[in-house]
């Protein structure tokens, strides 16, 4: 028996503030300090123009991250998301250029996501390959397919305005992309926190053995989490191409690393050690604000990349020191 009853720890310095509250919200405090710092020292940071800009920049990332959150919650990692973003980002423009009506093209994009997700799920849950490996291989295959479809070139010209509006337009004064981001976060949050489906995803990730002995069809939910990853990734991919105004076979790649980073940062807050949709959202905000702030300060992208890597290390170090972080 290694169980000890732990009563809530009261911190001596902070009095009635519980220690786990400090843990839960420290990342948010850092985020707030960052916003404050950029606002004070970077002139163009706190303008409505720039805020809209950040919203647009992080919307695809947030959507990818929201999908990955399902995977992480079920303890499955999808390393193919970046290339799945790329897949939708070339498939939909290709179809549109070829004259397919917009709704059909978007449906085809979703269908492609479903197919990728089901393939990943098949190799992970039926064949039994760890998701890390199966999705790494899938990513490589998708990378090849994306370039094959386009012959390695970007697809531009002839994209309908209605499609471009999704990525560049505004609705009620707010970028359409931001609406999509908010919608994706709302849907993902509701499914994870307020449905039996989400509860079971968390159960499978939280204690697979207990879930199975409680009658949960573990394999089904592990598979579903991977399908959701792919579906969110294709939505992000379709929006990405609309924002860029062209379909680029390698445009999605950076969403893998950044997407994982949003989830890791999210896991440091709210329910430390657990991937949550809101945590991921704040994680995306964190990365978006850093990128944007450093950009405005004139730092080049290499520096941004170094800073981001350092932040991932710090985030994961914080999480794994305080809770057991069982990723795989």
């Amino acid at each position, binding site marked *: 028996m290694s169980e000890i009853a732990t009563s809530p720890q009261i911190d001596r310095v902070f009095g009635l503030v519980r220690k786990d509250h400090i843990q839960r919200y420290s990342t948010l405090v850092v985020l707030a300090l960052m916003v404050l710092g950029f606002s004070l020292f970077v002139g163009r940071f706190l303008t409505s123009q720039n805020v809209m800009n950040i919203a647009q920049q992080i919307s695809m990332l947030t959507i990818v991250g929201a999908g990955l959150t399902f995977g992480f919650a079920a303890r499955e990692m999808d390393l193919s998301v970046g290339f799945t973003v790329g897949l939708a980002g070339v498939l939909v423009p290709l179809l549109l250029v070829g004259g397919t009506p917009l709704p059909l093209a978007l449906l085809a994009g979703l269908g492609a996501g479903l197919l990728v997700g089901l393939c990943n799920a098949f190799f992970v849950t039926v064949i039994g390959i760890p998701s890390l490996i199966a999705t790494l291989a899938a990513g490589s295959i998708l990378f090849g397919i994306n370039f094959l479809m386009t012959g390695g070139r970007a697809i531009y010209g002839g994209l309908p305005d209605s499609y471009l509006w999704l990525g560049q337009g505004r609705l009620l004064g707010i970028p359409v992309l931001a609406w999509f981001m908010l919608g994706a976060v709302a849907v993902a949050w509701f499914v994870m926190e*307020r*449905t039996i489906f989400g509860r079971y995803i968390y159960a499978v990730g939280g204690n697979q053995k207990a879930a199975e*002995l409680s009658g949960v069809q573990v394999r089904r939910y592990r598979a579903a989490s991977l399908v959701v990853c792919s579906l969110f990734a294709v939505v992000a991919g379709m929006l990405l191409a609309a924002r860029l105004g062209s379909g680029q076979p390698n445009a999605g790649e950076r969403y893998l690393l950044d997407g994982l980073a949003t989830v890791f940062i999210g896991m440091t807050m709210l329910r430390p*050690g657990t991937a949550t949709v809101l945590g991921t959202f704040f994680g995306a905000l964190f990365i978006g604000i850093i990128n944007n702030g450093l950009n405005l300060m004139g730092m080049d992208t290499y520096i941004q990349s170094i800073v981001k890597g350092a932040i991932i290390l710090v985030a994961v170090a914080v999480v794994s020191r305080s809770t057991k972080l069982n990723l795989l």
Partner: protein
Amino acid sequence: MDIRLTDIVMQFPGTRALDGVSVTFRDDEVHGLIGENGAGKSTLVNVLGGSLTPTTGQVVIGGRPVRLGSPHGALTHGIAHVSQEGNLVSGLTGAENILLGHEPRLGGALIRTRALRRQAADLLREWFPRVSIDLSRPVGDLPMAERKVIEIVRALRGNPKIVILDEPTATLPAREKEQLWQIIRSLPKRGVGVVLISHFLSEIKALSDTITVLRDGRHICTEPAASLSEEKLVELMLRRTGGAALKAKTTASEAQGPVVLMLRGWHVGAVEVPDFTLRAGEIVGLIGLTGAGHFGFARSLHNSAGARAARMEVAGKAIAPGRPAQMQAAGVALVPDHRMEYALIGEWTLRENLAMVHPEQGSIGAGILSPRREEAEAGRVMRLMNVKAHSSGQLLKELSGGNKQKISIGKWLYGAGERYRVMIFIEPTEGVDIGAKTEIYAEMRRLAATGVGIIIASSDLLEIESVAHRVIPFANQRPGPEIPQERFSEAIFIAAMSGTAA
């Protein structure tokens, strides 16, 4: 040369695995170490083998206290440890395994293959002249007994004074055991003492010169093997929990309902149960020593994907053995042992844990959960089970063992209605204080009174004696003759568990 452990205490977070154990191991005898799971055998040999450094207490070799520090350190003091799982590299040959890390080399980097084969063969012949093993084959292709011999030869490579053998025959088929037994018996004559751990009492009896019994981390006795009968050993090994309050017996007359579970020709793994019947309202106790098959049988009734049955009926309906989801649909519930591993999620709230089996109770339809509904049902179950917590929103990990166990049981009451007709409890009060224990027993009796058939598999005999209506003892993977309530006594239980007729 003697190796003496004196007043060894091993404290782990929340549990004391060894509590002042003193034993002396000699280099001219086989020393058997027995005790139930959790008695401290593994901890003790890990201290002896250098893998664990005791919290307090000393290891004394040849009159001088030493610090072993690591398995390597123990080896330099003449103590070799052959672990239960085996430590061979299955892709390498027998010879390569025997000399692993000590290969004859050419210029520091290249291995002299022929010299290696010869040295390994010499070692084997020197120690066990009558054993012949093909050392040029990968050990993965060899029979289990030969692999064990190779491991023992490797342990003997550094001429140790003591070899620890942890369950050496556990994975062996019966006919291969004989060979290993002879090898074990031959070692003390060559000046190598053996510390032997085994679950098989007959094996311990047959091989040991001296036997030490551990129970709950304490040293119970060290005696010459000849002076201890198997029955006496069982009695010494079994843990007894005090408290006359627990003795409130369940009366047999309560158990007269219709049959809720009927099995014919049940096979799962090596366990075979030809015939089993459970009635509504009765509590059947399953007892046995570790490895006797009673836990495996109890578990297989809820997760029976690997089982075969000539016939299985739950609540009068014939069904096929299946996975937990299917068995639950038929009306079978399981409250497993090791609750944090098999039943609960520490980072979740009590409410979420309780709703794990039947979340639909808290749903307003279409799979959408209502926190308010969940709270209401969780509150009901928590009041029923008398769970002590601030609220249903408290995190599970903050509760005591007894309250956690109540949640583990409560999972099957949340939103379940009258659904479960068969409930299986495995070690239902492990790590639970006396107060919560009596409450859990009361709950089991209440459930039985509502027409649930209950199976309880436990190694706590007093627990079985106070809640069960009848007991089925298991030995050697088979159920023995049933013991009715009027014949309940510790002596009869022990006799039945050791496989001797009472």
